[in-house]
């Protein structure tokens, strides 16, 4: 499915980007299939925006080659790339009407005014803003401006659509709706889309594939499901969803199972692992439960904080496994701070990652 030559494909081969002494991207290769929506996810400064700007042609690669639709665009300026971008700030031209904004890309590439405005009207219709053409951007709400920016980008029928944190200026309620709309339009047009965000929930919600970046390189790439269920590092486990990371020691490694020692107990996990020695156990807060009874794979602890949130109760507990974060379903008589409990982990849901620092 992932060929690097079709219309709308994006391929990086060994791309390096340096600003003076600072390396923004370390020798990075990747390939995005036509029609795919790929999210670039990562903490700020990880290089995700740099990658987006390299695809747009707003930055030039220091080394390596970039192909769009099979054509080498490494030295092609942004003007001539068939790529459109929606900016974080929307970057609507404040001195032009909405229709002029949407028609801008068409008129500067030589289309007649009448034709450009007709197409612009179609584009506005597609984002649900038909009839708003005569207004100024300043007369629209934030969500509407955002949609104008999308319309302006897609009327050019680009091979690749780039979205730079498109939801970051919207309030929380609007975000869910707009991201569903963006996904819908992307699916309808079959547009290759690269989407930058630092919000992992947003990334999980819209993506075919997520590329998590860290320290100017790719930390892990895969479907949302892959990343959540099979993190390849403590960083990913921590970054995608909540995770408790507990130090352990791998005693025996098998093909499908391995034995680890954690807080004095030996547990068999149904996962393979590479090497013996120190490692880290990934325990999702949902997968832990609290009981008053001791038993195998249960560890004594005491409740530090208990927070009642209606749909769930969150506990911070302290015990032999260190500080843990636990999410429990609401019950009639929750534990209270100071209570002594046993935390039970379910070995079939635990994951193992290498022992390495997660902070960048």
């Amino acid at each position, binding site marked *: 499915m992932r060929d690097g030559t079709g219309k709308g494909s994006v391929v990086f081969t060994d791309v390096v980007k340096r600003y003076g002494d600072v390396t923004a991207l370390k020798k990075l290769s990747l390939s995005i299939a036509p029609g795919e929506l790929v999210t670039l996810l990562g903490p700020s400064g990880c290089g995700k925006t740099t990658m987006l700007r390299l695809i*747009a*042609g*707003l*930055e*030039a690669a220091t080394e390596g080659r970039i192909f769009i639709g099979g054509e080498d665009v490494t*030295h*092609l*300026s*942004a*003007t*001539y*790339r068939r*790529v*459109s*971008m929606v*900016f*974080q*700030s*929307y*970057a*609507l*031209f*404040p*001195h032009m009407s909405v229709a002029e904004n949407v028609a*801008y*890309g068409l008129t*500067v*590439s030589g289309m007649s005014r009448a034709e450009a405005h007709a197409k612009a009207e179609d584009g506005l219709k597609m984002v649900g803003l038909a009839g708003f053409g005569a207004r*100024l*951007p*300043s*007369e629209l*709400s*934030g969500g509407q*401006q955002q949609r104008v920016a999308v319309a*302006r*980008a897609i009327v*050019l029928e680009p091979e690749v659509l*780039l979205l730079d944190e498109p939801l*970051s*200026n919207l309030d929380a309620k609007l975000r869910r709706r707009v991201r569903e709309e963006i996904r819908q339009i992307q699916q309808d047009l079959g547009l290759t889309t690269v989407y930058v965000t630092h919000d992992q929930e947003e990334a999980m919600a819209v993506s075919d594939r997520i590329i998590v970046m860290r320290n100017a390189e790719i930390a892990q790439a895969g479907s949302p499901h892959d990343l959540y269920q099979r993190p390849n590092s403590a960083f990913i486990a921590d970054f995608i969803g909540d995770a408790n990371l507990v130090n352990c020691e791998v005693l025996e490694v098998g093909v499908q199972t391995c034995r680890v020692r954690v807080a004095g107990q030996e547990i068999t996990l149904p996962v393979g692992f590479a090497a013996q020695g120190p490692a880290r156990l990934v325990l999702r807060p949902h997968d832990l439960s609290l009981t008053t009874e001791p038993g195998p794979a249960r560890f004594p602890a005491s409740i530090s904080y208990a927070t009642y949130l209606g749909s769930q109760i969150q506990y911070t507990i302290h015990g032999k496994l260190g500080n843990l974060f636990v999410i429990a379903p609401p019950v009639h008589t929750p534990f209270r701070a100071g209570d002594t409990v046993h935390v039970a982990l379910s070995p079939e849901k635990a994951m193992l990652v290498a022992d390495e620092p997660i902070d960048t």
Partner: protein
Amino acid sequence: MKRIVFQWIATGLAGFCLIPWYMTDSGFWRFRWLGDLTLSENAPALLQVLLHGRFWLAGALIALVAAAIVQIAVKSPVRAARFTAAIAAAGLAWTMLQGLIIVRSGPRLFHDLLANTPAETGQIGFGAGAAVTLLGLLFVLTTAISGMGRGRGDAFVTGMIGLIVSLVGIFVFYPVVHILISAFQTRTGLFDLALFISRFFDPEIWGIGCLIGQGGCGPAINSLILAIATGAGTTLLGLAFALIFTRTQFIAKPLLRVLSVIPIITPPFVIGLALILLFGRTGAATELFSDIFGIEKSRWLYSFWGIYIAQMLSFTPIAFLVLIGVVEGVSPSMEEASQTLNANRWQTFVRVTLPLMRPGLAAAFLLGFIESLADFGNPLVLGGNFNVLSTEIYFSIVGAVANPARAATLAIVLLALTLGAFLAQRRWVGTKSYATVTGKADSGVHVGLSAGVKWVCYLAALPWAAFTAIVYSMIIFGSFVKLWGYDHSFTLEHYIRAFGTKIRDGVLKFSGVAWDSYFTTLKIASIAAPLTALVGLTTAYLLVRQNFRGKSAFEFSTMLSFAIPGTVIGVSYVLAFNFPPIELTGTAIILIVVFVFRNMPVGVRGGIAAMSQLDRSLDEASITLGANTFTTVRRVIAPLLGPAMVAALTYSFVRAITSVSAVIFLYTAKHNMATTFIVGRVENGDYGLAIAYSAVLIVTMLAVILATQLMLGRRRLRRETRIEATGTTGARV
């Protein structure tokens, strides 16, 4: 890219084959040269090579043709770009070198090599053909450089960088280098370092007689003393005004604003003139004091004190403008913190506010220092026996014995002083700024002044403001008086003499003596102003929006001309542009050029400030939507920069009208300027007419400023409402 290269190759070829290479006697635009293109003077370079044996001009042609061949023959775009760039660079270098080597009197170097060739008869200065050919070669070079992947592959950007670097090189660095050369040169044209050192450290320049009580000082020491006194004085007075303006409930604040604008529209010698009317031998104040107190009339004004008072009047408002920003820049929360820590107002002012302002005060001092050193008009009018560098330079060129070497040496001394201050300002003040403007909304309220500080400020500033008002009223008053000091009856005679009109045979005749220079000034200022704005804003665009190697050097060189005093520019232009290859003295072009490059830094600064407020993503959006850089500038940036453009236009227009220091070296009878005309009247003692003309100039500029303010005010309103509205939602940068 290929298409653009061919366009510029074609342009270069047109310049080479069709347009006269040299300067034609009758000028270019009258097209008299079309009459006989084969004449040695009128011929395009191609005919020069073929008919007149000027074989060395063929270099440009060879380069252009070679570039075209490379573009056609070499397949790899990057390699073609690299070859083309090399060829164009060689062509440019060759063409410029031949101009520098073979001058009017024949070859400067390689005499033996060029013996018995047409080179021995020499050649005159570059004309339109040479300019077009060089421009073509330059843009072939920059386009090829963009083809090598520089400047994000954008030919417009590399072209603009190339153009501005070349212009600054030719019109700022080349003349300054000429000063250096002539200071090192002996009478026979050889270079001698020892001679330069002896000239530079001449006790006649650096004499300190006045300090040790033995006669007068040299001009360098005089200038230094004056500059330090003016810098300190204007900073203290400016601070007093700024504190009153920002920290008190003073009623007449709008008047203070007016006070800060007035000097911008005042020709530099007008204050001196007004002072003469007040304190000269026959001045109003002199008469008054002599009548009442019996104080002897003297010529005390024509000394250090006269110039010092004039400079204080001229430059205090500038310090005021700078220091308003500095005082406002002190974060109120720092002062509030100090107060919550139990400091009273006085303690807060002395221990928090004042130290935070220290870098700003230093900046204001250095500005006053530079302005005082560069000031030409006031010392010229009031100098008397007190010689300063700027006027000494002038007298070395136009005095009884013209001595260009001495002028050049003095110019270097002056340049060293101003450049030193300029560098100190950038290095020292620039890095030590306690920038308390954080961009974070700071909602505190500035602490009021303690009673003591407030009264000190009032006592210093208000009498001075009144004095300024009196001085300016002298300009109006003096222009309506028959003969100052002798006959104080009302008259319009000066205005009629200067600006009288007659109707003869039904045709309006401008019979007044001033009309000629007035129209020339307006014409030249209106040509120079848009060019200044264009060059300044383009430079600002490159500095704010583009990244390229050597950007900081580029910025420095564009700001440099700000630190070069007008007299130094004047001398250097005389030395550089009086001879081939660039022979511009006596033309109107040189006046326009000098205005553009003197005032460019202000356009750059204004443009940078305005452009920094435009979100960069606006241009990037335009680029990714398929617009090229030129379209982006035209359709997105320029419309949003409207107010900054108008401001740059107004400012450069006004500066072109009031400037005298550089112009006085460069004007000719044919292109006399208002200021030089007035200076001439002053030298003849014709104060009435000089004052009347100055008043008319001030009114003219006021009218222009008010008109543009009205236009600007409306536009800004519209733009701001729009930008603010989008800004709240759209500009989270």
